[in-house]
């Protein structure tokens, strides 16, 4: 196997949002970039429906709205706490979200990733699909100098390798740059696309034009596990899914599919998707261990971005924006080093980490660093409180001749017996501390 003599400025492993952001930024910056994706095409291996946060993309491709495949912009967010038969909700809807440059969109990843990749190609990067990076190539001193793939020929050499390989991070793991994922740090999300005519979606959700709705649901749907259910409206389909921490699922003995099934049958959800044609069931991992689960972000000749760097804000369900931002920052750092003719050593690439620290990415990650452990150790939070809330709401709303004062007492009494005052105070305290 003769080595291909050519050397690239950078090799990007993976063509998800983070890899595309990195490859695009570097190609635009004039670097000779090779991007490698194992899927048949970019997006083919990626979960289907998602929320796109405009800001992160706008900083990379300012006029993306012109041709990116966007479904609906979000004008209404519903946060539901649900028990077995009801939901207590907070809905926020505003005309302000119908702005000229909306802030959040629903997208279908397979299409979006493909579009993003076409921009990467236009910017001048070479994109190889159906090619899996099998390992990193190191020189005698242990510096990363390229990759090997599952195709004959190679290795492929570069001054720096950007690992944008997503949550599993096998390439990084094999090169001992990071540890194996721990089951308590990843959620398994299962998701389906439900097709419905546009008019039906618009009438069910009270929408017009390109406006859309997002529902996030927590509570008894996850059967006591840490996780959430979600529903997004696309133009002609609804993405619905549920995610729970792998460790919890393993212990519960439930299958993710059962969970999704019971979520879909929930009386608050079922009517929204009734009569739809289901297509595309996917399961995918989400790194939810937070800041404390992050691996090293850079070393000699390599750096990590996106899910592979564990950059997901589980509380706000943000991932792709952290992925794109980290990818962009990585790309900018490398372009900056190249311009200064500096080598991509660990010390020089530390600039990437510094810039991440200065951005919202690591600020947010730090802010919520205690949440994963909190939820992990306090199973009742997502199970007991929704029930309490629901009965409280029902007691309060049911007009049955009871005096309001008596109702208040009943609600408080129930809280006391179900959790106890100290327990509640402790929960509140822990939550507040984790949030801070």
């Amino acid at each position, binding site marked *: 196997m003769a080595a*291909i003599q050519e050397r690239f400025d950078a090799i990007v492993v993976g063509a998800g949002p983070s890899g595309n952001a990195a490859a695009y930024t570097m190609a635009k910056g004039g670097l000779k970039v090779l991007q490698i994706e194992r899927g048949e095409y970019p997006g083919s291996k990626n979960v289907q429906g998602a929320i796109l946060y405009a800001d992160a993309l706008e900083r990379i491709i300012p006029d993306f709205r012109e041709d990116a495949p966007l479904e609906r912009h979000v004008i209404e967010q519903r946060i539901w706490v649900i028990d077995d038969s009801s939901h207590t909700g907070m809905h926020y809807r505003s005309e302000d979200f119908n702005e000229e440059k909306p802030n959040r969109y629903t997208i*279908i990843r397979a299409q979006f990733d493909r579009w993003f990749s076409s921009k990467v190609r236009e910017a001048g990067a*070479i*994109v*190889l699909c159906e090619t899996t990076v099998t390992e990193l190539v190191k020189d005698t001193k242990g510096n990363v100098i390229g990759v090997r793939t599952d*195709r*004959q020929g190679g290795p492929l050499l570069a001054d720096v390798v950007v690992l944008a390989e997503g949550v599993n991070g096998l390439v990084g793991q094999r090169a001992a740059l990071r540890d194996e994922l721990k089951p308590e740090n990843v959620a398994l999300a299962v998701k389906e696309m439900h097709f419905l005519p546009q008019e039906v979606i618009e009438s069910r959700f009270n929408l017009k034009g390109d406006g859309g709705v997002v529902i996030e649901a927590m509570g008894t749907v996850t059967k006591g596990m840490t996780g959430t259910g979600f529903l997004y409206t696309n133009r002609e389909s609804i993405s619905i899914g549920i995610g729970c921490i792998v460790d919890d699922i393993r212990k519960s003995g439930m299958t993710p599919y059962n969970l999704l099934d019971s979520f879909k049958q929930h009386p608050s959800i079922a009517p929204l998707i009734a009569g739809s*044609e289901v*297509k595309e069931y996917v399961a995918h991992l989400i790194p939810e261990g937070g800041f404390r689960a992050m691996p090293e972000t850079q070393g000699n000749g390599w750096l990590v971005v996106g899910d592979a760097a564990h950059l997901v804000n589980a509380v706000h369900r943000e991932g792709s924006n952290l992925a794109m931002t980290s990818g962009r920052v990585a790309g900018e750092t490398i372009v900056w080093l190249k311009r200064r003719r500096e080598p991509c050593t660990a010390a020089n690439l530390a600039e990437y980490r510094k810039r991440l620290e200065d951005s919202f990415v690591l600020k947010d990650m730090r802010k919520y660093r205690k949440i994963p452990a909190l939820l992990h150790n306090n199973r009742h939070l997502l199970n007991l409180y929704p029930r309490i809330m629901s009965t409280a709401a029902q007691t309060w709303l049911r007009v049955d001749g009871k005096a309001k004062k008596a109702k208040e007492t009943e609600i408080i009494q129930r809280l006391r017996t179900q959790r106890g005052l100290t327990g509640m105070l402790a929960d509140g305290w822990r939550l507040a501390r984790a949030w801070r």
Partner: protein
Amino acid sequence: MHIVVCIKQVPDSAQIRVHPVTNTIMRQGVPTIINPYDLFALEEALRLRDWLGGEVTVLTMGPPMAEESLRKALGIGADRGVLLTDRFFAGSDTLATSYALAQAVRKIGETWGIPEIVFTGKQTIDGDTAQVGPGIARRLALQQLTYVAAVQEVDLENKTITVLRRAEGGVQELKTAIPALITMLEGTNEVRRGTIADVLRGARAELVVWNAQTAGITDVSNCGLRGSPTVVKRVFAPKPRATKAVQIEVGDRDMGTIAEDVIARLYAVQPALEAALLRTAAAY
């Protein structure tokens, strides 16, 4: 030796959805692939090239984005990609498609040498007609070899080719003259994976892009809708059966009891069945 392989970019029909109300295809987001049958043709062409030397040109007619499929073919090992694209071609049926492709093959021959063999796939998964191959053969007066399972011999000196062809009830061994057109049967070879050098070349290659005029098509009335004798008058979804399956109760019943139940139901809807079964069973 020069070989031309016709490939078509098709929507991955496994992922096509029909709009439940309007019964139109929801194309949005349906990924496209190289027609799977064409890959067997490409592989056979590459095998012959590796064996006898020469070049493989891949040809596709389609929208500009069909370029992707050409790059993919180059990544598998083809030497040159030609994209035939023009709005005049829109709406072509098989007759018009074979006309345009035949013209392009002629032009390819003029430009890089007359091909000894033109390959197509057995059929496409979207049009699914298996007519374009024979159509090209006829228009270029090439010997037509359809459903070929293997090319056994190519004699460049005497300009002959011997192939095994899938026929009704058996396999024909045919010998004919080249140039010939072969439509390749599926599953006859294992499509190779290009090397790193191939895929890099595929990603970087300059493709040849022709429109009707540059492909040497002077009379566009043979192309597209105008050149198509067939007309699609109606597109509709298959009638769903009015009733769903009658579910045989399972519950906690043991398998044997359920089986008895199934048999009883069957005999009830097909009264003649039992006697027929006894007859065939007796024949054992």
